[in-house]
């Protein structure tokens, strides 16, 4: 096993983790501020990817596609918040799960009706094609850009929450809902904005990942469930926890798939080692989640109390 291959896999893990962070940040914000579990967050990821792919094909520009995908996801988020989600804030978690599960069915079939049953393909923009020499390894320029974008978004999100008026309102909303009403903040407006912000982040992740995977119905839910694992590990409602959890999950999952089959190959025959290694690697992050639950039932960075 070469150092170059190892470094490449590690970077892949970081890149995967940062994309998971984009998903998890929106989910955890929505839970922190509104106390809502949103299963349809994966659908917003899917919408971002589909609109980006379609717009990129129509305009011939990945960047216009990305903007379109982001805007479409934010708009879809605002729309479902206004029509459905805001009726759910006072409901119990079971109702929230069911209503947002219903939204998955509606949005998935809706996308299938509009874009057809076949996957779309989105290619990497010309500007970011090829690889770049990092000294120890050559690495995909596009994936490197994803790492950069992920970090930039994380910093931007931190600045938004720490420094702006909207951020103050969000933090107030997380600690005390009655207080922000007393401060004269328009809660309905705040909730719509927070939800649309989370949707935009999900749409962005979907569009960015769409260029290295195929864009298809059902692409959002596996990522959504991984984002849940991230949140459980990081602590619900905590942006910092989402970041740490996302990087842990991204790196451990990627490295597990890379290393475990090789480790088992040392004492099993190759075909068996591949099977056992792959099966165990697919369970690693859930075992990590179980471990966190045993040691820190409220996650690594519990946000409340």
């Amino acid at each position, binding site marked *: 096993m070469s150092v170059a291959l190892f470094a490449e896999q590690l970077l892949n893990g970081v890149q995967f983790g940062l994309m998971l962070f984009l998903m998890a940040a929106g989910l955890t914000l929505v839970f922190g501020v509104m106390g809502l579990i949103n299963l349809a967050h994966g659908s917003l990821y899917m919408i971002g990817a589909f609109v980006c792919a379609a717009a990129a094909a129509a305009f011939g520009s990945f960047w216009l596609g990305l903007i379109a995908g982001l805007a479409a996801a934010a708009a879809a988020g605002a729309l479902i918040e206004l029509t459905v989600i805001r009726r759910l804030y006072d409901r119990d978690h079971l109702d929230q799960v069911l209503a947002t599960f219903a939204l998955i069915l509606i949005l*998935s079939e809706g996308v299938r009706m509009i874009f057809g049953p076949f996957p779309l393909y989105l290619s990497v923009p010309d500007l970011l094609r090829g690889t770049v020499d990092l000294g120890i390894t050559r690495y995909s320029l596009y994936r490197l850009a994803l790492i950069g974008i992920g970090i930039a978004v994380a910093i931007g999100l931190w600045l938004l929450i720490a420094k702006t008026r909207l951020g103050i309102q969000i933090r107030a909303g997380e600690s005390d809902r009655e207080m922000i009403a007393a401060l004269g903040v328009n809660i309905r407006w705040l909730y719509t904005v927070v939800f649309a912000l989370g949707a935009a982040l999900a749409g962005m992740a979907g569009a960015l990942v769409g260029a290295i995977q195929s864009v298809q119905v059902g692409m959002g839910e596996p990522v959504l469930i991984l984002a849940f694992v991230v949140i459980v590990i990081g602590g619900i409602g905590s942006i910092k926890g989402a970041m740490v959890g996302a990087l842990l999950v991204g790196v451990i999952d990627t490295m597990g798939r890379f290393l475990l089959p090789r480790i088992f190959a040392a004492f099993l025959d190759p075909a068996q080692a591949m099977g056992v290694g792959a099966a165990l690697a697919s369970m690693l992050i859930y075992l990590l989640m179980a471990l966190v639950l045993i040691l820190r039932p409220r996650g690594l960075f519990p946000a409340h109390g």
Partner: protein
Amino acid sequence: MAEMRREWIVNAVLAMALLIVPLVALWINEPFYVTLATRVAILALAGVGLNLALGLGGMVSFGHAAYFGLGGYVAGIMAHHAFTGLPMWIGVTGSNQMLWIWLWAALLSGFLALIIGALSLRTSGIFFIMITLAFAQMIFYFTLSWPAYGGEDGLPIFVRNQFPGLNTMRPWDMFILSYGVLMLALVFFAMLRAARFGAALMAIRQNPDRAAAVGISPFGVKLAAFVLSGMITGLAGAMMADLTRFVSPAMIAWQMSGELIVIIILGGVGRLFGPVAGAAILVAFEVIFGGITEHWQFFLGLILLGVVLFARGGLIGLLAGRARHG
């Protein structure tokens, strides 16, 4: 009291309808509908399992497909070894006897529920939902990447497993077997709900602090209910595998977990016959709308959304009024 009597009438009508529909289908020589009714009975059985955790105990498990799928794989794997004659583990050969398979399906599903429940019940609310979903996803990916039993291609059961005195390859025999097991499970559910265990479980759902203050440990009672719930759903999984003569990771997919919750909600949470009504609605909807449009799930989503937002209580709630507990 009048409401309770009305619920019993609704239940009796549902039980009769589920028996009469396949009888008529048999009469007019439409075995497809017999198999459809069998599907309803088995899905309802899986729902009875979930209803125990979700309806009585208030544990919103979004991972019950794990037990359903495990039960299915137990049936598939045991039948596979019985068919090929290869030993399973050290000297143990497979079996094609349903009763023996069911025992293992229930025991192993219960064991899995014990582990997942013990971890998940350390938390509650939204955490619990996400964790049960995540653990089911773990089992899903495991079966997907474990090559020995078909991986993502699944595992066929060439000949249905056997039950003494019945020819399980005949649709009616398979139906009456599934119907019988469903009725037994419903009797068990009703007795459990009326007994001390049910009283403790429903009390914990409504007010865990009060239950603890009178000396009932919420964790132990909930875990016991969760294990029983997983066992019943696992049994249903084994029967479903025999009905379709096929198991695949799709049985464990998150959509299956969602479908099981939908069955409970459409029928009525915590109601005895809620899962029967819910499974019947879901299967009927799929057959009727699925014949009209390939996008039937879009309309299922709309209806589900409508039920959640405007008609809580499900079909049984609509027909029999609100639930009361003496």
